[in-house]
């Protein structure tokens, strides 16, 4: 399944993709990416630099956002540009939600521009690990 450019409108939202961040996933990400920073594996180290426990890699969260976009687009190759700011940390066992809204559609290039984000809820407040992020998706 892939989306067709002609079916889209500015303001359309892509389906939200959720996942619970587990310690073993973050360890697997450290091994797969090669980023072995102890901030993502060692609670004592994380506490020594001011966090209550380990945090997920920013790139782990960005990868989840990219999956939300490519799942919606139906084609991993469609994602031509993604730019994010990491604005809040993600702790273990938190549920991250990735989504986005179409902000522009260029009929000449058949590219969609999206405002994309990752959110989570912590102690009744909404945190935004990724906000003000932009994705460009090439559609057919």
């Amino acid at each position, binding site marked *: 399944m892939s989306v067709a450019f002609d079916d889209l409108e500015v303001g359309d939202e892509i389906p939200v993709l959720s996942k619970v961040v587990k310690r073993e996933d973050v360890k*697997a990400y450290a091994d*797969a990416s090669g980023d072995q920073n102890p901030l993502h594996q060692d609670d004592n180290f994380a506490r020594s630099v001011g966090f209550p426990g380990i945090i997920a890699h920013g*790139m782990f969260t*960005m990868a989840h956002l990219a*999956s939300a976009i490519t799942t919606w687009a139906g084609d*991993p*190759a469609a*994602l031509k540009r993604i730019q994010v700011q990491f604005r809040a940390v993600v702790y273990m066992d938190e549920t991250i939600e990735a989504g986005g809204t179409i902000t522009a559609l260029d009929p000449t290039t058949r590219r969609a521009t999206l405002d994309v984000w990752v959110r989570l809820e912590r102690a009744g407040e909404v945190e935004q690990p990724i906000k003000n992020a932009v994705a460009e998706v090439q559609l057919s």
Partner: protein
Amino acid sequence: MTLNTALVGKEYDEVPFEVERERIVQFADAIGDPDPRYRSEEPIAPPTFPTVMQIATGGQVVLDPELGLDYSRVVHGEQEYVAERPLRAGDKLTATPRIAEIYAKGPNEFLVTETIIRDENGDVVITGRSTLISRGTAS
């Protein structure tokens, strides 16, 4: 400032990197994306897979003794990828990192690195732009 702003514009050595199928599958499993195109006989790589290359090739930047970066103070601030095409198993690539910007804002310093990933023909495949925040090292 503790970071050496004289290094803005410095280009580092090009580093070879071959994309292996096993690394793609391992990465797709780790990010929990079930897309079968990441697990075929000749898979493409997920959009953020170039981070594997950036980590494998970025050491010469963050560990550059002339730069003065204390890696224990670093958090990842921003990331951008521009893709001409997805990476694929069997790609023989090079990554060339360059320091694009160094600046201070409030108590923190910002190191912006641009990494250009090229294929065997020298064509640009991916451009990565990464901002690392060095916490509390300004002034």
